[in-house]
């Protein structure tokens, strides 16, 4: 799997917020083998140096870092935060999040496209947090995005894949674009389903961080992601209405 030309070994991506401690966070990464960590450049943390101790701990995980613009509600805020993130983490990758609705934390599609265009022009490699909307996806690709991150459900809800039809359609429309189901996953089975549908990776945070045993849950997700990917690559059977015995019945005393 490649994002903007960079080979990524693991198809599980984890956020770094809300864990009981940085030690538990590190254990979750170790046990899951997750290859990418998202990290939030929270403006309210206060200045560029204020969160340095925590960011050092995240860097020590030894995985690729994907800074995000979590909590931004406007194009300008998102662009400024992305510029700050590039300085801080020395990467052009940015998970672009522009929130349009306070309660559902739904992305603002119009601001998202505009911010994606500006950041791409500034040389960023943008991972937009988007909905499953096909038209919006097309606009984001036109704005220069080479990866898409559609939501499974609103952030932090753990509802799983709430619009399976939409996610299938999106995957089918852009078969060659790397796509990550981001947000809304609560259980490994939901991650497996996303992978079975042909998504390239999943990204989650709350489901692991808020589990009673985050490291165990992270490993559960890692195995589910692997299982779902194997199933996708194995070309699964189509469901059918008529029962078809896997062992032929001819020659057995089935009429007796």
């Amino acid at each position, binding site marked *: 799997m490649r994002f903007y030309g960079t080979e990524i070994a693991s198809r599980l991506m984890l956020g770094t917020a809300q864990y*009981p*401690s*940085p*030690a*538990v966070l*590190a254990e979750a990464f170790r046990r899951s083998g997750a290859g990418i960590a998202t990290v939030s450049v*929270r403006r*309210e*943390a*206060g*200045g560029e140096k*204020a*969160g340095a*101790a*925590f960011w050092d*701990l995240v860097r020590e995980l030894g995985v690729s870092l994907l800074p995000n613009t979590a909590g931004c509600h406007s194009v300008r805020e998102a662009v400024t935060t992305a510029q700050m993130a590039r300085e801080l983490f020395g990467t052009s990758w940015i998970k672009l999040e522009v929130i349009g609705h306070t309660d559902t934390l739904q992305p603002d599609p119009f601001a998202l496209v505009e911010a994606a265009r500006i950041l791409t022009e500034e040389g960023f490699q943008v991972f937009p947090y988007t909905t499953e909307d096909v038209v919006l996806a097309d606009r984001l690709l036109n704005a220069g995005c080479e990866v898409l991150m559609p939501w499974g459900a609103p952030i*932090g809800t753990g509802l799983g894949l709430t619009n399976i039809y939409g996610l299938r359609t999106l995957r089918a429309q852009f078969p060659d674009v790397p796509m990550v189901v981001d947000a809304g996953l609560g259980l490994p089975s939901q991650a497996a389903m996303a992978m079975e549908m042909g998504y390239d990776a999943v990204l989650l945070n709350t489901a692991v961080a808020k589990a*009673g045993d985050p490291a165990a849950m992270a490993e559960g997700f890692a195995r589910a992601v692997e299982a779902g990917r194997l199933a996708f690559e194995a070309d699964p059977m189509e469901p059918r209405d008529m029962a078809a015995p896997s062992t032929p019945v001819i020659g057995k005393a089935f009429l007796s």
Partner: protein
Amino acid sequence: MTRATILGAGVAGLCVATELIGRGCAVTVVDPAPEHGPHACSWWAGGMLAPFCEGETAEEPVVRLGRKAADWWARQGVPVIRQGTLVVTLGRDRRELDRFARRVPQHRRLDGAALAALEPDLGGRFERGLHVAEEAHLDPRAALRHLRERLSQAGAVFASAPAPGAGLTVDCRGLAARDVLPDLRGVKGEMAVLRSADIRLSRPVRLLHPRFPLYVVPRPGGLFMLGATQIESDDRRRSVRSVLELLSAAYALHPAFGEAELVEIGADARPAFPDNLPRLSRRGDTIRVNGLFRHGFLLAPALARMAAEMACDGTTPELMHADHG
């Protein structure tokens, strides 16, 4: 008589001083400020002695060691209010309460009537809640003032700089000890104090919320401490967003807080190690006690006892961290 110099007059330093003076040491407490005040992280504490509720996310030693805290403070003559903790959620976050109940088994389930019997002013506002009865709270600023007075009466000396000379040093400087404890980090917490005559609470109330969790700790004089944010940052600015969140959550808990007087807004950075557990370490005649994170008043008594036993009896305590040398 063993001479002991304690660096830092926050909750850790004063608890260590109390334990050492009780074992017959001659104690000097060194702190740049002449009295307890806003320079110390403990100044901004909630004063909840809630080991079981903290166990929702904290590791096992926090729960076990924290259980002894209420008795320790009471033995020092500090007023400790043993009314437990009340845990509630707003209507649509009901599942948060079930999750919390699973992780904090020391609770009793309350229906609306039982909740109203415990906290009449919250009656009719919540249909269910949890009561964690074996928990307590205290007024943290009054508690540390009291410890200082008792220490002075017992002959402890308070100084603004360490006097040269031999003897034991116990470093309880919190985040200021980052010069010698490089894996110590600051975790910012913001709090507010309100005054209201329109609402009375007998015990700390925790409002579970997926985005804006809140606790309210009642204090004498109609004061209520609201806490606390938890942000990975050693910055001490009080952000508008955090204060909005705290005040909105309080207003959701009870509209009377909307009419309350805003007495104080505070922020500080809690000292924490990567596992968010406290540590003791020793090099020569210096013992370090640090990383109490959000559990200062809950864990300082246990840590102080360990430090004193290590100093006086030569024991190697739990939470001893060898890496620090």
